[in-house]
């Protein structure tokens, strides 16, 4: 609940590794961040390595390679296949499940032929 979010964070306890409380883009370093900072000039990088990862949420996209916990939905080609580093949370069926992993695991899975696609958690709000 909104009123107690901060309180709940301190008491939240799960048997699964959870994502960091906050992983907004502003806290993430840009790829090749060692280059000289030049305001309002685009620094480009190929993101082919993200080929199996849904890009949304955009605010997290630059940080996807970081050493952070990621909660995601995984679709695999081989039944019951779980990539290295992934911990299944809930099986939807044999080829689709929710999982915990790290940013590095996510990167590695994007090159895994048994993985079809991965979708990091995305916010859903009350429609009202």
């Amino acid at each position, binding site marked *: *609940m*909104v*009123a107690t979010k*901060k309180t*709940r*964070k301190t*008491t*939240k*306890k*799960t*048997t*699964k590794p*959870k994502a960091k*409380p906050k*992983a*907004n*883009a*502003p806290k993430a370093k840009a*790829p090749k961040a060692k280059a000289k*900072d030049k*305001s*309002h*000039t*685009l*620094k*480009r*990088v*190929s*993101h082919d390595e993200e*080929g199996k990862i*849904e*890009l*949304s*949420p*955009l*605010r*997290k*996209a*630059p940080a996807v390679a970081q050493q952070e916990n990621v*909660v*995601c*939905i995984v*679709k695999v080609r081989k039944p019951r296949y779980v990539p290295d580093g992934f911990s299944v*949370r*809930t099986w*939807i*069926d044999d080829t*689709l499940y*929710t999982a915990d992993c790290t940013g590095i695991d996510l990167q590695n899975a994007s090159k895994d032929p048994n993985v079809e*696609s*991965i*979708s990091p*958690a*995305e*916010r*859903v*709000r*009350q*429609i*009202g």
Partner: protein
Amino acid sequence: MPQDETIYSFTPLFDSTRGGATNDIDPRLQKLIAFRRSGMRKPATSSTDADEVAVLARVTDVKAWEAQSEVRPGLVIGDKGRDGTYIVTARIPVARIEEVRKRPYVKSLKAARRLSPSLAATTKEILALPNLLPTGAKAPTGKGVIVGIVDIGCDFAHKNFLNSTNKTRLKALWDQWGSGAGSPAFGVNYGTVYTPAQINATLTKTDPYTVLGYGPDKRGPAHGTHVMDIAAGNGRGSGVRGVAPDADLIFVEVANSDIPWEGPEAVGKSFGDSVQLLEALKFVFDAAGTTPCSINVSLGTNGGPHDGSSLVEQGIDRLLTQAKNRSVCIAASNSFADGIHAGGTVAANGTFDLKWVVAPGDSTDNELELWYPGATRMSVEILQPNNASVGTVPPGQSGTVTANGKIILFVANRLNDPNNGDNMIGVYLHPNAPSGEWKLRLRSLQSQAVDFQAWVERDDQAQSSFAEPHDNSRTLGSISCGHHTIVVGSYDAHKPDVPLSWFSSAGPTRDGREKPEVSAPGHAVVAARSRSKTGVTTMSGTSMATPAVTGTVALMLAEAKARNKSLSIDQIRQAVLSTARRTPPPGTAWDSRYGTGRISAKGLVATVIGVSPVASKPAKKSKKVVKASAKKPAKKPAKKVASSRR
């Protein structure tokens, strides 16, 4: 016709021999006078004392009006009218109505009317009351099925969710925020799952929420409570029932695995995430077991591919096809008038400037997604509000703009999305990015025109939008484009023509499928107010329309169960589509906002019984029929009406 031998006598209210007033008084006030004279007392309400009535008056002298000792002044509405009078509100004693009305400066005196009387407006309009369902219906109240609610804020102590022995109707309540370690029995390993026994043990306590360790937000009416009441409240508290009042209930308080704990986005927000939403749906279906189950989801955002290919939508679709007697109804969204969609065509080897407006003072993140066919190629150049270019991103690349070491802009031109093969351009703006009109200069890199569709992500605090004129088509929510879900638009059941709600999002999906499938009353819906035990509140939105359909599907599933029939999701969807009522929407074609038409509980139940579905009728005629045949849905009046705008 049986003979009635009772002798009735007529007593004039205004008798010249008694020196009373004339009958030039609002009939509703006359009724109160008559009741008082017969010894009946008017009870107190939230705004009036006992034997006091709220009135609207038209007066020529406000000071004199307010100076009357009988008058408890309220408001002066607007300025002096052309006829020299003012409209004022007040509370006056019933005993003084006649005297007040006789004052020379009082030109008119009317009792206040109740607006949006109750949830009955929904249940009547969709033909869900037992007397409106087909004759011979065996489960007209939804007995034997489960209504699942995945939402935020369940008031398990509201009497509308208790049975006749004051025990909970909830079969399970999973609080994903809970500090427990889940429940092996329910197959979840985080949050807290509350059983009926645990809930029942709290119901006699002064503060059941603290005792249980879970409760709806104290600061305002809970969305989830209101939604659950529309779908399946039994009216034992509010006096007015929802669509499937005898269904069993399962509620999941959906949480977010990654939310900002600080900053503007953490304020006043209630949201879950796609992963835990999917886990919630799986939980409800698992907990229901073989019991037919209709789940409501009134959650969503604006982004996504809008073709049903996102993994969360694929996951929901898979859950729906794994077993019979399951459905998921999802709100279409409330973004029709927000300017969040744009579509267009970039000419072969040409450019197209897509304008994106961020208002001054917007201190929130802003995001945009643009989708174009996988077989085509475009570059995107980003121009700041001062028209300075920050650079161009060719296909297959992404880029960032930093200021003072922080990313203020991220843009990706991503090829071959893993789920649909299409290309997507995404742009993220940090709150520190300049406000104003940004431009995305799209350039076709081939001798072929490129079609695109784009969406601005939802932002409840400061919604950015595309520049006008807006294309309000395809404004469905991010998870409202699945292949097996039932997506619901909203209209206003309080008006004779049942017009569309101004906010109700439009289809179709990006891949041209006809969603929303159906529409239901979602405008000014009065339903349970959390932390009130018996009270109600008013909310509007496709969130309020969707549970009307969820409850209606529950009635259908209950009827099927009573007749030992099983229904696949395809059969359920087909029945929803084939029995939807027209006029409105006009004509026979699918409407981008009403969908195939207005939901009909009578029609859905009839398809199970095997009789002909209800014929389409114009709304006005249909409502007259309903009024003529409808009985009062509840004995008790709704209590303590509050109102909130959602």
